[in-house]
């Protein structure tokens, strides 16, 4: 009975989404206050019913209701309750429901928190978000109903994909989706602006905190995914340039560019049409990512169930939403005039370069991700584009970006006074280069050009970021959240660069065969296979090894990598043993049983890898501090009055 209630709630939510879209857009167009009011009520109603549907599905998982196909496919009576709840979004249908839940949450938040917006504009935003919601609910109800019954009911469920039975992966999808879907707010703001055909600096100020919020979720979500891949997939890699990873990284790049160009639009009234295009692109890339992941047009290690009917639906939806927005853009954007000019050394120039490099990186990744598809469509053969391409092309725009970042942070709007800072910046650059050379030579024993360049850029960005709050504090100047946040986020970017350079340049990976009692040495660490034993988990059996790590005769730690076979079948899963350190990680994964008591072991030495995720968290934290700047929260009484005055009299 409860699954049917959930199904019915979804249908009601769809009807309310239709009402929300119609009354929101038509009410704004015709100036009908009552219609606009109705659209807002529909938002609340839709949120209630989608939450109800989500609750119904969760309850089916908790009650182990294997008469529901989705539950029977993705859980098992042995599955611990925590993972049974996480299994709600463990596969296609449920993750769509989560998508819809996130969207209605964001819509509700926009509706509740944007009372200072001009009524018609707010109503259009609500209407556009309603249109997106219609697409997703319709998709779910027609091709991917999570409440479909299984007749006869299964006695036992097939179990959640063992790869997903992990803490980071249970919270990774919701956070990532909050990011993906969060860009819909900036998208709706942009479309509403294009419909109205005018854009002022308040628009950018409204859009910025929403964009930053979504971007923070995306940053954290991507980092979690990377961290998970590192310890769970058993290869010790942290980024694979897999199509699904790229699908989340491309909106992030667009969102990063958008945050920066919004600053210019807000402060200087420039780049207006470009900012709108980025706002449309960030969400479009989120939708594109959903399409790539869900339709199966690309092969990926993220083995999702695919279905051509679903692919066609999403493609149609994608075409309507993105195509519609881009046509609207082509029609309306030419009217938006950017006002003033600026000098070459002004902050505007640096942000222009920032956008150019970020979008170039985005374009190159998009090209690499879709290249196999293009080749196949043109019958030029099946090919795959691997990490070497991405590593190479990503570096090309990133190096100048980091270089300019260190200067651009100090530039001022309109015309710049970099002269007084010149000596100090040169000083930081020189120190950064020296540290990079010394670190490469002293710590890792050799100097490599790319490693030195990476380290130097990392220290350059970190030093330059620190300089801003330090000099402000010394001069007893105020340190607003926007400035502090910017410094922290950019310091984080430097830290990420440090981590990537360290691990890519100086990692050591070795696959060895060891019997119990044998040892091997990599990077000055002795790894001894001390013992092997059988282990029994709630829904798996496995083998666990004790690997004793010592250096110069001193024991550092004992790691316990596992190889698990889940009762539900499938490939064996690796649980790596990792010794975490500020300077390096030591990584041990159990490979194959080679017979006669010998096992293959994957041993890795990963210098500085922690800084990749630490840096990413700082980036998110910086974004949070900047987004919470008082400037955005000020009650905009004056502005509301101004908007009311400029509203066309009907």
């Amino acid at each position, binding site marked *: 009975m409860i699954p049917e209630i959930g199904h019915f709630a979804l249908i009601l939510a769809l009807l309310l989404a239709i009402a929300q879209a119609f009354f929101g857009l038509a009410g704004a167009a015709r100036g009908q206050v009552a219609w606009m009011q109705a659209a807002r009520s529909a938002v609340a109603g839709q949120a209630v019913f989608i939450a109800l549907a989500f609750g119904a599905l969760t309850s089916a998982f908790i009650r182990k209701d294997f008469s529901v196909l989705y539950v029977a496919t993705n859980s098992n009576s042995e599955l611990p309750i925590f993972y049974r709840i996480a299994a709600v979004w463990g596969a296609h249908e449920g993750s769509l429901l989560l998508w819809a839940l996130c969207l209605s949450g964001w819509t509700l938040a926009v509706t509740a928190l944007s009372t200072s917006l001009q009524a018609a504009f707010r109503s259009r935003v609500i209407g556009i978000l309603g249109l997106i919601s219609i697409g997703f609910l319709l998709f779910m109800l027609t091709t991917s109903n999570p409440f479909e019954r299984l007749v006869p009911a299964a006695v036992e469920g097939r179990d959640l994909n063992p790869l997903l039975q992990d803490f980071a992966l249970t919270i990774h999808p919701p956070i990532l989706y909050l990011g993906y879907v969060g860009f819909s707010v900036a998208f709706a703001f942009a479309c509403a602006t294009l419909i109205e055909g005018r854009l002022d600096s308040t628009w950018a100020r409204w859009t910025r905190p929403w964009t930053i919020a979504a971007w923070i979720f995306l940053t954290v979500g991507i980092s979690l995914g990377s961290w998970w891949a590192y310890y769970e997939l058993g290869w010790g890699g942290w980024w694979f340039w897999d199509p699904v990873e790229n699908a989340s990284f491309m909106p992030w790049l667009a969102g990063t560019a958008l945050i920066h160009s919004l600053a210019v639009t807000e402060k200087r009234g420039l780049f207006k049409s470009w900012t709108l295009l980025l706002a449309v692109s960030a969400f479009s890339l989120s939708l594109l990512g959903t399409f790539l992941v869900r*339709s199966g*047009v690309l092969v990926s290690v993220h083995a999702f169930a695919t279905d051509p009917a679903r692919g066609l639906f999403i493609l149609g939806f994608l075409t309507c939403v993105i195509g519609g927005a*881009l046509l609207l853009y*082509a029609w309306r954007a030419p009217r938006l005039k950017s006002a003033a000019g600026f000098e070459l050394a002004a902050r505007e120039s640096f942000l222009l370069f920032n956008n150019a490099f970020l979008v170039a990186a985005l374009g190159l990744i998009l090209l690499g991700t879709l290249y196999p598809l293009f080749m196949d469509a043109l019958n030029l*053969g*099946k090919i795959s584009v691997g990490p070497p391409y991405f590593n190479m092309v990503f570096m090309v725009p990133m190096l100048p970006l980091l270089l300019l970042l260190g200067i651009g942070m100090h530039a001022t709007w309109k015309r710049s006074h970099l002269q007084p800072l010149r000596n100090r910046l040169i000083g930081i650059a020189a120190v950064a280069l020296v540290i990079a050379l010394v670190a490469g030579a002293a710590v890792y024993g050799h100097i490599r050009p790319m490693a030195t360049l990476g380290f130097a850029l990392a220290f350059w960005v970190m030093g330059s970021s620190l300089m801003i709050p330090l000099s402000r504090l010394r001069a007893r100047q105020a340190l607003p959240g926007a400035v502090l946040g910017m410094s922290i986020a950019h310091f984080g970017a430097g830290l990420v660069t440090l981590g990537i350079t360290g691990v890519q340049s100086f990692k050591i990976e070795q696959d060895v065969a060891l019997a119990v009692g044998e040892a091997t040495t990599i990077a000055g660490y002795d790894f001894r296979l001390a013992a092997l034993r059988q282990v029994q988990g709630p829904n798996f059996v496995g083998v666990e090894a004790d690997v004793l790590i010592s250096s110069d005769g001193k024991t550092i730690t004992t790691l316990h990598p596992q190889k698990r076979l889940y009762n539900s079948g499938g490939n064996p899963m690796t649980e790596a043993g990792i010794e975490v350190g500020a300077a390096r990680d030591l990584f041990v994964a159990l490979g194959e049983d080679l017979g006669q008591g010998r096992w293959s072991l994957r041993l890795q030495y990963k210098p500085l890898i922690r800084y990749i995720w630490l840096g990413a968290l700082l980036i998110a934290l910086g974004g949070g501090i900047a987004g919470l700047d008082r400037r955005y929260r000020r009650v905009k009484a004056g502005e509301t009055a101004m908007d009311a005055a400029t509203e066309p009299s009907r």
Partner: protein
Amino acid sequence: MKASLRFLVPAVLFAALVGFFVVGLQKDPSVIRSPLIGKPAPAFTLESLEDPARKVGAADFAGRPWLLNVWATWCGGCRQEHAVLLEITREGRLPLVGLNWRDERALAQQWLAQLGNPYASVAFDPEGRTAIDWGVYGAPETFLIGADGKVLHKQIGVMTQEIWRRDFLPLLAAGKGS
């Protein structure tokens, strides 16, 4: 007018992208043409699964079309396609040869005893050497070899009636005609 046309560029680029997606959706990205197609089938001589004393080889079937199906008892897809294989053998158009891959003899024999044996003969390849020669990615895979001893087609993944009728039968008919 001309200046405002550049605002249309994103929409045009996107339209081109959609075009590619429409074509891409019609194609299955997991279909990878085997480099073997059109080349002579790799020779092999292996022990028979049923009887270690007897040998099974590609040469046994020279001069007529035949199928090679790579399977193993640990492979879920193989169990799934088993009924279709039985039916193909029942139709009797051509012999089906099994390549039992990285498996245990006793388990494989038990499997055939339980599920029925669609194979004219089964080659036993516990170390997977022959499978490497044939460029096997995983089980199940099915190769069609023509009367001239050349590989005509390779199916990666589970065989179904639909795939059999769509991909294999036309090739077989064309091969007989020539």
